[in-house]
């Protein structure tokens, strides 16, 4: 007699339903929380209390919600950057570096021209500069991918380090245009003109960047589902040979999609500069926002609209880490957030299995019953050619 385990079967799903698509990310989050609970218990903390506290600081207080929204803004943008590329099998791992260069370009443009502009023009300048900066940073990997077939995974990833060191050099390395001349002892970025700062909501730190991020998600969604461009991208992502057959220029698709992805990550850098920090702040930017965007995109199944709630969720989790640390008495390590986001990604990736397959237990009695039905069904004459499914 085989064990119950031996009777488990993986069975391919034809088309995963919406229920499954929603359930898998939710279960992944729960599983990650359970996983985290083990570690919290090991270091002598009560997991339920910690989680309740995380929920409280990130999602219940007005201040907490505002902070979550602020953290979520760049995550949504880097999430979109990853989603748009990964969806078409173009793996831009360089969101991190594109964010830095976007921030450098945005702060540079604000410092250079911000004084001469006012109102929407000043804000537009920062946003466009950030997007351009990100696009420039992915341009070489994109062109190399399109014409030489170079793996964009490697090239975009390696450029992250170049961008990081470039940004650190601009502030810590030398007296540059980006550095505040007054900050002799502890170097920091020069403040950008007020006109180039993103307007905030009331007295909170929630800024226009959130609107930009949400707008970008909606526009991308419409672009993908309703337009010829999105249609061509989807054909390319699904079957490159079919794209070639239909006369869709593959190189153009590769370059445009990757540039757009880089621009979105650069935009995240711009909102950080013009929204949260008000200056080029290497320490405040190097928080893995670009890498976390990949987690957001994966959890959102590369759907631009789903990136918004996932970004808000992850923004809250990441936000709670530092907040918990400041609580008196409890010694909650700040790394708990990082561990949880990592665990969520792992469980979400494992969850893919359940999206594509279902698990069934084979019951011998069931099989006999089915076989009986089968015999009677086949015995009766049937019209047409019958089901064509090959077993």
């Amino acid at each position, binding site marked *: 007699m085989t064990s119950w385990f031996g009777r488990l079967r993986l069975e391919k799903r034809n088309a995963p339903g919406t229920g499954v698509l929603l359930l898998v990310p939710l279960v992944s989050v729960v599983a990650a929380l359970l996983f985290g609970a083990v570690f919290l218990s090991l270091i002598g903390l009560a997991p339920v209390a910690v989680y309740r506290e995380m929920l409280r600081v990130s999602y219940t207080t007005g201040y907490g919600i505002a902070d979550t929204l602020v953290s979520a803004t760049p995550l949504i943008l880097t999430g979109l950057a990853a989603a748009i590329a990964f969806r078409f099998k173009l793996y831009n791992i360089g969101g991190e570096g594109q964010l830095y260069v976007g921030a450098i370009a945005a702060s540079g443009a604000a410092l250079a021209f911000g004084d001469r502009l006012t109102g929407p023009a000043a804000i537009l300048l920062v946003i466009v500069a950030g997007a351009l900066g990100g696009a420039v940073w992915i341009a070489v990997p994109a062109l190399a991918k399109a014409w030489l077939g170079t793996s964009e995974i490697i090239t975009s990833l390696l450029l992250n380090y170049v961008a990081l060191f470039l940004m650190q050099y601009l502030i810590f390395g030398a007296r540059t245009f980006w550095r505040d001349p007054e900050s002799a002892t502890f170097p920091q970025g020069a403040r950008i003109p007020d006109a180039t700062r993103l307007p905030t909501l009331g007295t909170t730190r929630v800024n226009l960047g959130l609107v930009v991020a949400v707008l970008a998600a909606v526009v991308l969604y419409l672009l993908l589902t309703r337009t010829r461009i999105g*249609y061509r991208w*989807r054909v390319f992502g*699904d079957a490159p040979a079919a794209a*070639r057959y239909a006369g869709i220029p593959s190189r153009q698709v590769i370059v445009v999609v990757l540039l757009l992805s880089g621009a979105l990550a650069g935009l995240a850098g711009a909102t950080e500069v013009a929204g949260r920090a008000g200056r080029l702040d290497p320490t405040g930017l190097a928080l893995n926002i670009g890498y976390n965007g990949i987690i957001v995109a994966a959890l959102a199944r590369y759907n631009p609209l789903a990136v918004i709630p996932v970004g808000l969720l992850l923004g809250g989790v990441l936000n709670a880490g530092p907040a918990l640390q400041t609580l008196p008495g409890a010694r909650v390590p700040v790394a708990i957030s990082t561990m949880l986001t990592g665990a969520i990604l792992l469980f979400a990736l494992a969850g893919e299995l359940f999206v594509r397959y279902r698990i069934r237990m084979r019951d011998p009695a069931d099989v006999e019953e089915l076989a009986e039905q089968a015999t009677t069904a086949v015995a009766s004459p049937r019209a047409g050619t019958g*089901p*064509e*499914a090959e*077993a």
Partner: protein
Amino acid sequence: MSDMSDIPDATAPPALEAVGVTKVFPGVIANAGVDLALRRGEVHALLGENGAGKSTLASILTGLYRPDAGELRMDGAPVTLKTPRDGLERGIGMVHQHFRLVERFTVTENIALGDKRLPWRWSAAKVRTEVEQLAGRYRLPIDPDAIVGELSVGERQRVEIVKVLYRGAEVLLLDEPTAVLTPQEADALFVTMRALADDGRAVVFISHKLREVMAVSDVVTVMRDGAVVDDVRTADTDPEALARAMVGRSVDLSTRWARSAPGEPVLKLAGLRLDAVDGRGRLEDIDLEVRAGEIVGVAGVAGNGQRELAETIAGLRRPDGGTVQVLHRDITGVRPSQARMAGLAYVPEDRLGTGLAPSLSVTENLQLTRSLPFLIDRRGGLAHATEVIERFDVRTTGPGAAVGTMSGGNAQKVLLARELDVRDGLTRAIVVAAPTRGLDVGATEFVRDLLDARRADGCAILLISEDLDEVRALSDRIVVLSEGRIVLRREAADAEVTELGLAMAGQATPNDAPDEPSQGPSGGPYHEPGGPR
């Protein structure tokens, strides 16, 4: 069961027998109470459409699957086969459609591979001698020292057969063995199959080709929807009856030729040349005309330039010389979309992945080669898809279903609906590659009807296929492509299988490949001067 008195050992228990074998997969009844008796000395054909349950039954007979109900008996005694190796040790061997050989090994090494009887330090010479004996006895010419990677498809198949024989198989199952062979190679295989049966082995020939089943088998078992629907001696039946049993209704797969004389030349290839770096699959000086209202078939063994020819015409490859014209308009080297605008439709042989994007919906796939406005007309697309599903009888859950989840026949219907829908009045020339490959008889009939209808509509159709039966079934003229050159041209009515087969194998004499004769639109009787025969 019919009269069995002519079988010498009719009373002896079958070498291998399936009794009431049932196999259920979730949602599919693959085998429902199947009885099958394989006797020594017989070639037993297993006939059925895709999905009829042939492969499942073969997998059960060889030990890959275990039946959910019913049992197997060998020489009358019940057996349980746990794995294919278990089956092989008891003398049941299978020659798969897709070969399982190590390309870098020699023939002898491949045959010895996996043989547990051999000691750790085995003697290649001993195995080699045995291989030579088997090969000689069953007329399977192979060189035991050849590297498998350098062998032709037909030779590899012989290696597979010898491998199974070497392991002592008394029951041999051959899964669609002729699919990859030229007619001559297929004939040679039939001689071998007969020799194996005469030597007291039971041979199972799994196929859906009626002609071959009639030619080689002693007994035919027809399966449909997982059940045995007919079990007769081949001598007591005919192809029509078998087709009817297989499909469940009468089908017309007879040869169809143009009913009226063809019109003006529509698709014109002149001196088309394609140089390749690796020297394979190139094209040399292809001259060919396809006139309105005719189907020209391009026959040939796979890899002789068929794909290159189709792709060059369709604008997917830029030729290194020569021209492609559609209705006097030069479309040489233009983009695929421009070729389409000039009136050329192309049905690629690889339907899922090239002709269709698998995870996109029926609606979206129907738009693939259409020129689209910036904002996609979703309502119009949906209406069109609904109408196509209705008109072409596409079995699917709806216009939103991904084509990758559909059966081959239904996916092909979607592809043909898009490329052969000539109601826009635009399409004048059609290049179609392997349109019925892998399709069952019902779907094949549908596709042939459709191509025939387009011919009647006045389209010029170039039919490229490795399946000679498919080419012969529809073409008015046949050309044979070998190593990138047209080596034979024949009127379909004058084309002989032997001659075509020899040309496909690259054995045509040079004067058998005349240049395309120039013919005006009014060009008198519809006949070309044939080569000497």
